[in-house]
């Protein structure tokens, strides 16, 4: 066996996904609303299931309902539906208790655009 360390430092351009990626960095949920059928996708889809490609970026409230969750040594993750979106999203769950059914998007604190859901404040829950 030989040892061959290799360090790679990528520069990756998000392309048309740029508003989505920038949103994750600030904790905003930027979704795509189809100009033809008004379906809202988050994460955004370039081509709507209806076939249309013209769409408008919209900012969702950022709150989501957790439909399924998994946890273990790999971390905590969920399949959630963001309010205002017609698709579900797979997210990392951060500081969300097992009995919490909702959460809100949080800004990525890592040097990469992570899609994270964290606990809502009591005030946000009460205002529904």
């Amino acid at each position: 066996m030989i040892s061959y360390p290799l360090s790679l430092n990528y520069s990756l351009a998000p392309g048309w996904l740029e508003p989505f990626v920038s949103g994750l960095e600030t904790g905003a949920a930027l979704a795509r609303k189809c100009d033809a059928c008004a379906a809202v996708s988050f994460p955004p889809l370039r081509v709507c299931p209806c076939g249309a490609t013209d769409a408008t970026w919209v900012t969702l409230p950022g709150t989501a309902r957790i439909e399924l969750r998994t946890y273990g040594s790999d971390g905590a993750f969920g399949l959630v539906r963001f309010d205002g979106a017609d698709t579900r999203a797979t997210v990392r769950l951060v500081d969300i208790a097992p009995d919490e059914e909702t959460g809100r998007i949080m800004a990525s604190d890592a040097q990469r655009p992570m899609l994270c859901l964290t606990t809502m404040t009591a005030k946000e829950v009460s205002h529904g």
Partner: protein
Amino acid sequence: MHDATVTVSGAAVTPFNRRRDGTGLRDWAASAFDAALAMSDLHRGDIDALYVASESDFFHLQLNPASVLATELGLAGVSATRCEGGGASGQLAVHAALRAVQSGAARHVAVVGVDPSASSLPGDDIRTLYGFSFDAWTDGMTGLTSTALYALSYQAFTESHTVSDSDLATVTIQNRSNACHNPGAHLGRTDSAEDIANSPVIAHPYRRLHCSPLSDGAAALILSDTSHLPTTRKSAPRVVGAGAATDHMHLGARAKPGLFSAKTRAMQRACAEADVTPSAVNYAEIYDAYAGAQLQGIAALGLSGDVIRDLRAGRFAPNGACPINLSGGLMGQGAPVGATGVAQTATCALILEGRYHPDLQPQTLPQIALADTHGGICTTSAVTLLAQGARAA
């Protein structure tokens, strides 16, 4: 179309394990290829084309591996193509080779699947790379692991299927028990349901023992235009159907995230080509990256109208009506990614021909066998149907 019938004239699988013997990818590829070529009663000069399945240059640090293996295997001069589709890479290479022979572009084609998924990098690095098998900008950057995505999909599956932890244990125990009789298997084990329940939670409900291992190894096939085979191999098993399909790359954008819809579409295409129905399949190698994925796969492929009832009744056990993963599957035999689909097809061919490991070979030869592979979270599906040579003649 030239419309050749395509025979599996040669098939071989190296041991799958974590190599500590100083051998490397080129040794494994050559070992599998040489054995398959010897079985085919053909010579190197008869091979017109090479298709290589290897998932990622990250694993072996060899870009353009098909061109290198062409020389390594003594085939320099043939056309050489690398096929990649994540976990489905091996089966996609089988499909490419099949189409080359069917079209008349080649008479005899070698398929080699190989990856060093165990020994070349630390396991955590391999698992990190696997995380980029899904949409890198959403799931990959978020750090979603393969196990977590499969766990979420399996949970969605259980909303429409009444499954218990003991069913996951049954799949796990059965595959690893089969692997105990496969001398080339990575993970033959005799864990109890309690052992499984006590293994660490990786991503609920998946525990460590529900997961397939990272393995090194290779597999090879020679696919031939039947009319150009020596008489000794003319009646060998045939490839009678192949189908591939995709699903939405985002689990969350799927209407039913628990169903492997791409597999259903791929199977429909393969069955149409073979002119059979899924109920005709009486042997299958199913892509069991996780225990629950095997159940989701059986359901999506249409091998059972009630997968849980049939599992409990022993339909998929070694002595059942449709044994599954006698090799041990990914969970028991192991998972060198590029080799996986090629090995599944090789296993099906060897079983149809009655040449598999003696302790696992069914006494009554199956008529139709299915090799089922997918990549991503069943985002890419590729399935292949094989039949007895006599049936297809």
